């Protein structure tokens, strides 16, 4: 194997002087926080800030275990699934492999946070980027847990489940095909795609623990950014303006799509929130359900951290447009007109 660290000499970076290490910074931060606790608590004793803090902690606490599951799966793929085995499972032609990956999303019954590290690992193992991206978009939306939750939230409209399934799957497959046609590998930062060497014997476990741990540290920070954004928006956006839309279908679709991005709800819960908005037709609610798991502020933060900014800046808006279009078409087909 080639050792990258020897290929890139870092001698120029070595400094003889002693630097402050991150460990010392951490200790100072902790001590300062402990000393300032009472001041912090009193500063946070304002209604809106307290509500925001609770939502921030809730989003982090809710999503972290799913991220942990994601990095474990990702680490297991890196260590125990040879790249050749993955490619044997998938059809040779990319155009055919994309839908297969979309349907395979059924097998990852979690929120969207788990899908990002897994998709990245699939790319590293030599799965075509378009195929991994189709999996990334499909997994959070088409898995059984989410579909059952949707059914529970819309007991009188079972067609919502079918419409959501088809709309989300179509989004994933179309984005996969679009990437296969127009996507450029250089948009994704190089380290996200760098192949890991095939591990042997005992080093497999080492690799499993190391990749899981490193992925978790990497993605965890971005999850926190996403949680912070979602909390601020949750407090800042008055939900009442959704209510004033009433029957205006086009405006409703646009507002619900934007809201899905800004609120960054867990895909297992968004159906209940959509169902709660009274006096709105089903179509905008469906748009909310299809857009949310495909792209929201939390996912955008995770994608930026995992695949790089130039990827996320292109992929996220494209996903948004495709998801809205797919949701509208699925709605027209399954909900019969504007519902």
């Amino acid at each position, binding site marked *: 194997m080639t*050792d990258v*660290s*020897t290929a890139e000499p870092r001698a120029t*970076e*070595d400094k*003889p002087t002693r*630097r402050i*290490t*991150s*460990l010392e910074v*951490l200790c100072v931060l902790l001590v300062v926080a402990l000393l300032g606790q009472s001041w912090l*608590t009193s500063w*946070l004793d304002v*209604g*809106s800030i*307290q*509500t925001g803090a*609770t*939502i921030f*902690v*809730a*989003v982090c*606490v*809710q999503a*972290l*275990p*799913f991220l*942990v599951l994601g990095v*474990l799966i990702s680490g297991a793929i890196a260590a125990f699934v040879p790249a050749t085995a993955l490619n044997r499972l998938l059809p040779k032609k990319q155009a055919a492999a994309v839908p297969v990956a979309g349907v395979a999303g059924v097998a990852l019954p979690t929120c969207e946070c788990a899908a990002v590290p897994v998709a990245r690992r699939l790319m590293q193992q030599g799965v075509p980027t378009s195929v991994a991206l189709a999996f990334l978009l499909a997994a959070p939306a088409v898995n059984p847990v989410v579909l059952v939750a949707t059914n529970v939230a*819309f007991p009188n409209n079972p067609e919502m489940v079918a419409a959501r399934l088809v709309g989300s799957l179509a989004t994933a497959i179309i984005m996969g095909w679009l990437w296969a046609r127009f996507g450029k590998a250089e948009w994704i*930062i190089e380290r996200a795609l760098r192949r890991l*060497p095939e*591990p*042997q014997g005992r*080093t*497999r476990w*080492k690799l499993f623990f*190391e990749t*899981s*741990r490193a992925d978790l*540290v*990497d993605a*965890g*920070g971005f999850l*926190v950014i996403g949680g*912070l954004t979602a*909390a601020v928006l949750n*407090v800042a956006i*008055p939900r*009442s303006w959704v*209510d004033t839309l009433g029957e205006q279908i086009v405006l409703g679709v646009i507002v619900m799509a934007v809201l899905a991005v800004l*609120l960054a709800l*867990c895909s*297992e*819960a968004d159906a*209940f929130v959509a*169902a*709660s908005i*009274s006096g709105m037709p089903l179509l905008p609610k469906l748009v909310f359900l299809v857009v949310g798991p495909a792209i929201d502020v939390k996912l955008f933060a995770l994608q930026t*951290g995992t695949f790089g900014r130039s990827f996320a800046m292109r992929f996220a808006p494209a996903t948004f447009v495709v998801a809205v279009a797919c949701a509208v078409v699925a709605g027209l087909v399954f909900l019969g007109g504007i519902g």
Partner: protein
Amino acid sequence: MRRETQNILLILAGGALLKISFTGAYLQYVKPAHLPWLVGGGLVMVALAVISIGRDLIGPRPERAETPDGTHERIDTPVDQADAAVTADPSHAGHDHGADHEGEHNHSARSAWLLLLPVLAIFLIAPPALGADSVMRTDNSAAASRASGTDGRSLFPPLPQGEVISVAMSDFAARAAWDSGDSLKDRTVRLTGFIVAQEDAVYLARLSIACCAADAFPVKVKLDGEGTSALENDMWVEAVGQVQMGTATKETDYVPTLTVTGLSQIPQPENPYEA
């Protein structure tokens, strides 16, 4: 960021998850069914960090040249292939200074610091469950239609027998608005919730969550009776009374009115939310 710092951050974050799981504080943030996820996630985070620390302590490391700030520079031996595979990826390597010089990596290395935010929030601030502020932020009309999952009237199952029956707030609001069988008529109910004083009216409110507090939505019942005006926001009470039939209409945003015959202040329930 150094590996040691990363590991400590992981232990702190995992420990925070475990702490709220065992103290029961997690109920202020997520639904009860989430507990196994929190315990599992917390244990794995701590385990990953401990394994990493253990391997750094006892593992063979003569092949690593230590720079003054503890950075591992070169890994050449085949024994450490797996390490090399990971540390060859600069974002994962323990380079404090690497982050400063290699543009695209620094955001990745630095972002890990943010893990400290939820840790500090949980250990030092421990944000309370959502309350009156959150209710006033959300629109009123959501509750009733959501709770019944329907937009039309339907027949609800009969309420249990008894002089005074405990009913969940969401069930009460749904029955008041949508029950074609009028099962609440002339029944005395006991409701548990917190007080929201809003626009000259006093409401009893409860938040329901489907997954976590981010998707909380309120159920409100207007209180009508002696002594309700003295109640303050976020005070938890048990209210006993009867519904005023026909008060949960479109004009009132489907918020029913309860004629209160008894009020008692209670401590916040272990699970502040309704499912």
